[in-house]
């Protein structure tokens, strides 16, 4: 790559069409190069991570004015901050002077950021506040070009903060479109319709970021990739126990009553609730074993009697996968965020969530629910996701056989009446169908075939987005 291709300056330039995506992405298959070509990865960091709304952080990570948390927009280092006036901003973590990062903490509280290299300082709005020995400069630093760069459009949806550099994107709500409904449902099962983050299981794998997105609504892999988990969760079952965990994938999931639904812009949804008993206590009944389970269940049942089931369900994993392109996944009780590190390295952070119960809707049981909920959430990252990540790494290894060019995603394609449209026009397929993957790849293809107009902000008082 030539220096002109760099996006880290905050000003992006087209690289020219090096790849014809009409030759790389077909309805039934994609070319291996989208996972293995460095130049394509560089383009993605501009056309996808920057060109669309990208998840940056959650408001519970910056509850007070002056709180900040480190994030990334693609590879760009970002400080997501609630500035001293309460406005949420996404600042480039890059000194305007010579380029150093100005914030080196993961999380904290600061009214200003001071560059450790030459002491240039900035308010947490991004506005420059001063430089050492200013009389050595001919200018007075009132020009906004000296303010920190920032993501010009930052919007939240119910606590989830997103940013884009693309002025041509629709509003965040329009971008989310149909996926707002399952996200609303997921939030609204909790008191007050809200949650807070409570640390994370942080994982990584040596593979391209899309391998994770490709997996996110995949009901085909479950009983194969997660075979050891399914066996583990059911090893202690008594004869009259219900099957635990994701056992509803066993035998013939395509004949089971759950489905995958495809929304606009690459978002999709696996709704497994129709496969399980969702009456109060139904989710709890299929939870695998977890530390403290019997202890807290006894306390909650003793305290709440026949109201206990719905409270215990809040400690149970909600059987949905809500995937918001390109980097946000809501599943179980997790908020899973994926972060490209390089062409063949991806971080995936499984944020745990805790219930907040301001109005005591859980009758004094919120601490017990959260103590259980921490443990239920540690299970899948430990005993399920690691096997997926190994399989992603082994896909990346397999794709080094470059003469074998194609990756197939045609399960369900061409079978009459298999894929339907719901009343809103969204495609619905059986749980193991790859329709979600085909549709996402068409969205990706459109993005990769167009050079977005990316801009950064410097003007501090610009109208809120």
């Amino acid at each position: 790559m030539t220096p002109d291709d760099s996006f880290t300056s905050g000003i992006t330039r087209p690289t020219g069409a090096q790849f014809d995506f009409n030759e790389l992405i077909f309805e039934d298959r994609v070319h291996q190069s989208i996972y293995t070509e460095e130049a394509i990865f560089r383009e993605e960091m501009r056309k996808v991570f920057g060109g669309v709304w990208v998840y940056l952080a959650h408001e519970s990570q910056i509850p007070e004015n002056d709180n900040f948390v480190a994030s990334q927009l693609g590879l760009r280092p970002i400080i997501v901050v609630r500035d001293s006036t309460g406005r949420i901003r996404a600042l480039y973590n890059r000194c305007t002077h010579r380029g150093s990062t100005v914030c080196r903490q993961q999380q904290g509280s600061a009214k200003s950021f001071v560059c450790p290299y030459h002491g240039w300082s900035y308010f947490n709005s991004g506005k420059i506040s001063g430089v050492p020995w200013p009389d050595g400069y001919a200018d007075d630093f009132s020009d906004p070009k000296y303010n920190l760069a920032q993501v010009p459009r930052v919007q939240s949806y119910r606590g989830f903060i997103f940013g884009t550099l693309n002025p041509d994107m629709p509003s965040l709500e329009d971008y989310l479109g149909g996926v707002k409904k399952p996200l609303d449902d997921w939030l609204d099962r909790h008191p007050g319709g809200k949650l807070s983050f409570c640390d994370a299981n942080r994982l990584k794998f040596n593979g391209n970021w899309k391998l994770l997105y490709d997996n996110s609504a995949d009901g085909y892999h479950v009983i194969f990739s997660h075979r050891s988990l399914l066996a583990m969760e059911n090893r202690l079952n008594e004869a009259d126990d219900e099957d635990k965990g994701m056992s509803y994938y066993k035998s013939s999931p395509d004949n089971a009553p759950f489905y995958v639904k495809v929304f606009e812009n690459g978002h999709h949804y696996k709704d497994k609730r129709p496969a399980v008993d969702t009456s109060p206590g139904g989710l709890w009944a299929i939870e695998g074993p977890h530390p403290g389970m019997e202890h807290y269940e006894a306390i909650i049942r003793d305290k709440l009697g026949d109201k206990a089931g719905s409270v215990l369900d809040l400690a149970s994993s909600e059987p949905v996968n809500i995937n918001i392109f390109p980097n946000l996944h809501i599943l179980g009780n997790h908020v899973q965020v994926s972060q490209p590190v390089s062409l063949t390295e991806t971080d995936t952070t499984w944020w745990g969530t805790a219930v907040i119960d301001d109005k005591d809707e859980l009758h004094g049981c919120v601490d017990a629910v959260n103590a259980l909920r921490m443990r239920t959430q540690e299970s899948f990252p430990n005993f399920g996701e690691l096997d997926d990540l190994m399989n992603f790494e082994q896909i990346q290894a397999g794709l080094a056989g470059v003469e074998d060019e194609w990756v197939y995603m045609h399960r369900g394609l061409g079978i009459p009446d298999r894929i339907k449209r719901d009343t809103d026009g969204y495609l619905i397929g059986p749980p193991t169908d790859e329709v979600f993957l085909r549709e996402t790849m068409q969205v990706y293809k459109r993005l990769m075939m167009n050079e977005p107009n990316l801009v950064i902000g410097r003007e501090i008082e610009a109208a809120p987005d």
Partner: protein
Amino acid sequence: MQHDPSRTSYYVGDEFYQSLVDSYADWQTDDSEITDPALRDTCRMLLDKEARLLDQNRLDDWLTLYVPECLYWVPATPHGGDPRTEIAVCFDDRRRIEDRIYRLQNEYAWSQRPLSRTARLITNVSAFSTKDPDTLMVRSTFLTNEFQAGDKRSYTGWYGHKLGFQNGGWKILVKQVNLIDCDQNLRNLSIIL
């Protein structure tokens, strides 16, 4: 015993969590450091044996070093945190440790096929007394080297073992594993540290 902790988890409750948080707060004081070389060597032997059994993949034998109501804990924050309100990298009670062993011995646990080979170094062993003469705390520094799927990597940090004197010998009550990079993204941590 009223409940079998291999099958049910009644012991991980408020009292257990509180005692855990309390016993891992401010325990490494100069005043409480044990200077008796024999007692320290007893602790060191237990840690060495644990490392050897794990390196030899003798997981069922390894678990016999632990009391029935035990804990294997890898915090996700450098200060250890409060596991009631924070996700941990691992927080395994007896049943979940047995789950973990069951899965590692299952031939379909792809993250451990082929099985990792490991070589563990344990050093800087210091033992500390507690108010209870039958309870000791032991700090040690570890370096666990792993060979997995053609790739060599390592985990390092310090262990905080809580030991109890039971039936004439020292057993492990709690093993806390403090990775120096516990708050970073980790690649395929599927072995027992």
